């Protein structure tokens, strides 16, 4: 297996993207086949690389320490495999879902281009190729959102681009600082104490990673995209790819590049960011009326768990965060796909209009339920395991307040999914939607596969933990404590597990109370929480995007531009345009008045001139 093979995961999808773009609309089947074949090949090589574990491809590129350096090691091979997996599921799903979409060819091209960039970013071992592939995703992000075709998708695409662009630029600044501190751009050689300038670099790069993952301050484009962008995009990028890449980089930052100390200021910062993201996002999710927006807020909230996990800087917590990353990718993608399947058949995802679809769409219903339970952290599923590890990590790190925030998040997550599940699948049938059949197999199969994986990773969690997560932490265990998470993963007879189960029961009661209070209408189950005195006000403000940093940011940008334009540019132009010309005319007018054509005047000047000249010469001659 020559090092050159490392180029394959980048070049194959890129080439395929070009081909897919070129294939005329009529040859749709050929296109689908090609896409699936390409994804399959990528998956195969994902496994091959995973088995291979170590490979390095390094060729000089721009000089000055910048060379095209790709490195395969256990962490990147794991992410590569995961990316390939999701790619094939999404491609399969899209062959049907995007069948009659106007710009389907572009969609497939962007999907594979994203895959190429993502693979490149994961494999990169020099910061410049990393940034090159990392920011390349911006282009496809913009392209994919505009495919939504709704009038506001252009605006949302720009919003997503600006937010991600801002984060990527701050990451560039972070990398620049890191380069000056560490002296080298090769990622594998960088390992710096995060103090002083390096701390600033850490924060900036963390912003980059969190921005990509969609954490709190940079998340506002995801809910808008949920409505404006195609659902396949939501399942593909915000649910799976972005989370994987974002948390991969966050892990590498806090593990490889900087030696993050548990309990240090930066770890607390991360934990605060995580906790805040969990709580606020889930509260927003609870009151959503549209299934896709609800799921998108959950995507943001779940990232909070991962950041909290990594933020604890405790091996147990970090492992929990990483495991939660892959688990979340699976069940979130599943949830979005099932929402897509519902939308495919019924044409809408409004909770009010939907109801009792479990009889007509049993498989989607089953898939949705399994994933919903997984995300809520119900026992034996993978969500439970990774959440437990995050809870343990949070407690072990000494700051119980973050654990409590996590638990609160768990409560509302389960409450909102009860509401969603109940109103979409388990309530009684509403008349607005005609009779519907189950979606085609190409849509249902990916959902079921993901549901199965959730069950597999939950029940037999030893496999992913030892195979994927453990090697990542191998190099970083300080306390020498044997990294054995698997021993008490599934036992529920310990205080932490009991508390989480208590939370679930609490959520169920909350849902039942809401359900009964609103006269058996499942989609209003969250009203009691929604109508709390102060909270109600906050919700309205949030819906009006008051807290949306992007909207405020754009207003600030526009204000600043206006100030710069009016206070600096126009005055300078005024000086050139008016002041100089008017001054010239004024001075000339004075002089011209002196030329009135009288001979006597002219003679007078001559005499005056003579006197002055004579005086000057005699004075100066002395």
């Amino acid at each position, binding site marked *: 297996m020559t090092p050159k093979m490392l180029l394959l995961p980048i070049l194959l999808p890129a080439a395929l993207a070009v081909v897919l773009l070129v294939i005329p609309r009529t040859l749709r089947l050929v296109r689908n086949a090609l896409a699936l074949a390409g994804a399959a090949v990528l998956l195969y090589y994902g496994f091959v690389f995973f088995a291979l574990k170590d490979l390095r491809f390094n060729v000089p590129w721009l000089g000055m320490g910048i060379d095209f350096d790709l490195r395969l090691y256990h962490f990147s091979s794991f992410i590569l495999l995961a990316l390939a997996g999701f790619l094939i599921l999404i491609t399969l799903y899209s062959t049907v879902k995007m069948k009659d979409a106007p710009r389907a060819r572009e969609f497939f091209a962007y999907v594979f281009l994203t895959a190429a960039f993502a693979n490149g970013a994961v494999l990169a071992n020099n910061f410049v190729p990393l940034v090159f592939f990392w920011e390349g995703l911006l282009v496809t992000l913009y392209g994919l959102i505009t495919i939504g075709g709704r009038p506001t998708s252009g605006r949302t695409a720009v919003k997503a681009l600006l937010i991600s662009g801002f984060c990527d630029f701050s990451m560039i600044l972070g990398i620049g600082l890191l380069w000056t501190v560490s002296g080298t751009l090769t990622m594998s050689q960088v390992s710096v104490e995060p103090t002083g300038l390096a701390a600033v670099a850490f924060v900036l790069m963390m912003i980059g990673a969190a921005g990509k993952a969609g954490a709190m301050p940079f998340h506002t484009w995801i809910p808008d995209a949920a409505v404006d962008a195609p659902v396949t995009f939501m399942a593909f990028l915000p649910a799976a790819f972005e989370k994987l890449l974002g948390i991969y980089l966050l892990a590498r930052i806090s593990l490889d590049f900087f030696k993050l100390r548990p309990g240090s200021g930066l770890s607390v910062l991360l934990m605060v960011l995580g906790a805040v993201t969990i709580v606020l996002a889930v509260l927003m999710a609870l009151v959503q009326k549209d299934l896709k927006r609800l799921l998108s807020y959950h995507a943001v909230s779940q990232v909070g768990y991962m950041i909290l996990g990594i933020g604890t800087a405790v091996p147990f917590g970090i492992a929990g965060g990483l495991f939660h990353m892959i688990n979340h990718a699976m069940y979130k993608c599943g949830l979005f796909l099932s929402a897509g399947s519902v939308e495919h058949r019924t044409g809408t995802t409004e909770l009010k209009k939907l109801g009792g679809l479990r009889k007509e769409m049993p498989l989607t219903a089953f898939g949705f339920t399994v994933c919903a339970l997984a995300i809520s952290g119900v026992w034996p599923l993978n969500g439970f395991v990774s959440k437990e590890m995050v809870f343990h990590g949070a407690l072990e790190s000494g700051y119980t307040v973050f654990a409590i925030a996590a638990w609160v998040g768990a409560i509302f997550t389960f409450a909102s999914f009860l509401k969603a599940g109940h109103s979409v699948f388990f309530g009684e049938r509403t008349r607005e939607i005609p009779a519907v059949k189950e979606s085609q197999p190409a849509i249902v199969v990916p959902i079921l596969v993901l549901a199965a994986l959730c069950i597999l990773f939950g029940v037999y969690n030893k496999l992913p933990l030892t195979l994927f997560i453990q090697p990542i932490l191998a190099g970083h265990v300080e306390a020498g404590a044997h990294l054995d998470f698997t021993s008490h993963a599934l036992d529920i007879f310990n205080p932490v597990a009991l508390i989480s189960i208590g939370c679930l029961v609490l959520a169920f009661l909350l849902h039942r109370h809401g359900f009964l209070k609103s006269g058996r209408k499942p989609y209003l189950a969250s009203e009691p929480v929604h109508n709390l005195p102060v909270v109600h006000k906050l919700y309205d403000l949030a819906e009006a995007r008051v807290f949306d940093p992007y909207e405020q940011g754009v207003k600030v940008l526009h204000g600043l531009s206006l100030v710069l334009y009016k206070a600096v540019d126009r005055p300078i132009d005024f000086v050139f345009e008016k002041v100089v010309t008017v001054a010239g005319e004024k001075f000339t007018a004075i002089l011209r008045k002196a030329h009135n054509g009288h001979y006597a005047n*002219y003679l007078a000047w001559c005499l005056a001139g003579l006197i002055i000249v*004579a005086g000057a010469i005699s004075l100066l001659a002395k």
Partner: protein
Amino acid sequence: MIILFVALPLVVAGILPLVGKVSRRVVPDLLANAALLFLLVYAAITGRHLIAGGPVLQQLSWFGEPVAIRLALDGFSLLMLLAIALVGLAACLFSIDYMEHYGAKANYYALFLVMIAGMNGLVLATDLFNVYLFMEVAAVASYALVAFGLGRDELEAAFKYLLLSVVATAFILISVAVIFGMTGSLDFAAVAKALQELNAGAAVGVASAFFLMGFGLKAALIPFHAWLPDAHPSAPAPISAVLSGLLIKVSGVYAMTRIFLNVFGLTPALSTVLMSLGALSMVVAAFLALGQKDMKRMLAYSSISQVGYVVLGIGIGTPLGIAGGLFHLFNHALAKGLLFLTSGSVQQATGTRDLDEMGGLAKRMPITAATNLVGALSIAGVPPLNGFWSKLIIIIALVQSGHPVFAVIAVLTSVLTLWYYLLMQRKAFFGKLNEKWAAVKEAPFWMTAATVFLALLCVGIGILFSSTVTTWIQPAADVLADGVHAVIGSWGF
């Protein structure tokens, strides 16, 4: 045979009115232009290798016995002769067509040649009184030529010009008398030698003050400039070209430079006065030009401003400064002659001199517009034309001789100069065609030929500036840089 420069034009001028009786137009044109062409060729070719070995002195003899006509030709006077011949020829070519509707062409050419003869005589004179006399010759001819159009404002302008010049020459005469009184002789060499021994600083100071007033008025420096903005615009175009291009330089700057540098010797006091006068006229005239509505008045003020540059250059006194000043004198003669000729073509084509009425003439008169552009950019000092090099040398000399303030003023004035030339371009040629001039045709053949001749000269000198400087400007500058010794040593008769 350098007397030819004076004698030939006079003789031709003498016979011209008689010839004029015979054929009204063809022969006078031919004769005048042939004379000037001969002078040009004579100056350009034979002149150069004459002065190769230092100044040429000629003591004439009338049928055997020596006559007190002493002429001296050195680098500086040869440069002036060349300039006179060049611009004179161009103006003469131009007037073939332009003077058609004025009538009395033979008289016009006669006066023109007398003026040329006067200027040539002044340049070759070796005696203070001769300088005064030949200046009068050129002046009288120019009074008549300015009033040639016989219009009301032409007569008034000519009259004012005459009266002011008379005052100026009176003061020059006083100064000549003072010098004669002090040194007992009028010959440059003798006066220079005598002044060296006499340390009558104050008297020389007063004499140079009077000279400065007289020649200043002739050169139209600011306090004494008032006659020029009236005289030049009302004169017929070729005449204002020769006036602005040559007369103010020969009878003003040449005489002042020759006397101050070669006879009196440039004292620091005189140098500062000259430089400040130059700078003053540079700035004030530029501002005045900015406000003009009449094309030729703007060009007249621009002449005052550029003569200010020349005087500033020469006033520095360093060899480089003098070279810069002389080079600018030469370039300005060509470029300003060109501009006045183009204004003549425009006036003849549209019948007006008012810039606001003109508009987009470039469409109908492309060659005139192009040549005007070349002239304007050359004077504004925009490379690669000749004006740029001379201004550059002046500014370098200013900075090197420790006058940064003057250098900044010179630089800012060249920006101002460009401003009003752009104003002229925009109003006259570069804008949209004013429908009034839709029927306007390009100027007749000889007029465009003259302007193209001068324009090519401007561009040629701009590109081959190094050979021009070494062959023509450097010898002249060396003569002046030697100061009094140039005259004492080699001019003794």
